[in-house]
């Protein structure tokens, strides 16, 4: 199933042509360099680099806004109080409500870091197929158990979500309703129904896993892979130079923050 995150992997930008492995290393390093930014003067540069990279990726703005929706509300909920409760230097005061300079700085820094990191994460995941990104992680040392778990879970995630929705609809059609008032007895019986619902989902997924394992076994899963001569894809000038540029930009941010 093609999920929202894989919707624009077919585009043909420079970022899409960048091989997943150097892209993961280059942009991953930049993400951690952004996480280290503590100096407010670096924020415009951080936002500028993010905007340039997103433009190069040619991903639509609607994609970014859609992905920003939920986490954006969460982060605003967390940091909106900061200017009111954090710091000592008062910028503005109205009765007992006071805006503090340190709190405002912390809020701006957190929101901008969050926006830049989330955007870079979207560029990594939105410009390569999910399986190619996992393969790149595997080549960088991700243990095979984790790689297999990620791929298998991703394969069944949306299927189980759909199964759960169907089961919940079936419950409603049979007359099971969520309690509308705060009565302990009703709440407990609803909790028991939800536990049975989830238990049924777990049993179905367990039975599906047995069938999947048999099918995977027939296709050679668990057997030693046949030895084949290493065939690394040809390295292009773009792949290498883009990685070097990203590492230099990351180093620039880290050093500027220290100085």
């Amino acid at each position, binding site marked *: 199933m093609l999920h929202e995150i894989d919707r624009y992997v077919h585009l043909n930008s420079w970022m899409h042509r960048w091989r997943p492995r150097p892209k993961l290393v280059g942009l991953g390093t930049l993400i*951690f360099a952004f996480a280290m930014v503590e100096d407010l003067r670096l924020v415009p540069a951080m936002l500028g680099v993010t905007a340039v990279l997103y433009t190069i990726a040619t991903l639509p703005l609607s994609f970014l806004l859609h*992905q920003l929706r939920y986490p954006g509300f969460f982060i605003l909920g967390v*940091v909106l109080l900061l200017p009111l409760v954090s710091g000592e230097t008062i910028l503005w005061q109205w009765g007992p409500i006071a805006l503090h300079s*340190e709190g405002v700085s912390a809020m701006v820094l957190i929101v901008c870091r969050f926006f830049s990191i989330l955007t870079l994460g979207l560029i990594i995941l939105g410009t390569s197929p999910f399986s190619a990104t996992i393969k790149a992680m595997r080549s960088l040392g991700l243990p095979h158990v984790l790689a297999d*778990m*990620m791929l298998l879970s991703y394969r069944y995630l949306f299927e189980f979500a759909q199964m759960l929705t169907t089961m919940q609809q079936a419950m409603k059609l049979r007359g099971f309703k969520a309690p509308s008032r705060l009565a302990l007895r009703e709440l407990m019986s609803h909790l028991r129904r939800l536990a049975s619902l989830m238990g049924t989902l*777990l049993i179905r997924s367990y039975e599906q896993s047995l069938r999947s394992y048999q099918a995977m076994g027939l296709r050679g899963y668990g057997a030693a892979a046949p030895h084949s001569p290493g065939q690394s894809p040809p390295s292009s000038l773009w792949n290498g130079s883009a990685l070097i540029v990203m590492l230099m930009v990351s180093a620039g941010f880290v050093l500027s923050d220290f100085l």
Partner: protein
Amino acid sequence: MHISDGLLPAKVCITGYAITGGLTWYSLRQIDRRSTSTEDIPKASLLTAAFFAASAIRFPLPPGSLHLVLNGALGVVLDCYAFPAVLVGLFFQALVFGHGGLTTLGINAVIMGVPALLASFIFKLRRLIKGQSSRATFVFSFLAGVSGVGLSALLFFSLVITMVPAELDASLEQTAALVLLLSHGPLMLLEGLFTAMLVSFLARMKPEVIPE
């Protein structure tokens, strides 16, 4: 109960990744010791996907509703696969819903995964009781559920309150942490009951899902 990107200083994120690396190594070593490790991977993966899907279940608590955390139940059912499952689940949550983040994946895995491991350990203690009655299964899975969400809440609020604000008053920090933790008391109780009901259901209907 996930920390978003940009909230924590880089050193905390890196420390989170270091702890997660150690716990993943420990879990993978436990998995390798099993004779059925290849067979178990699809089971653990599909159960992880099912837990992830089930995290969308909302429990109505009039006038609102709440989502269950389920890390205690995950620890009970997945045993040594619990920590890798938490890591995979959090990666998908960051990817699909934007909950959590890539830089905070390590610290979020500690917040959710360490309590899952503790829940798994608590549930295993039922072996000390001879006969392992259904009542013992209920009680130990209840304790696993309570401790799972309780420890997660403690770790989450301690980190957010001590690491995020620039210059917050120390006594205000302590009060806020205490108030937020106490407000999670009903959720801990609910989570414990739900875990106990879920594990009892599985023990009756499909006992092989629950690890020995």
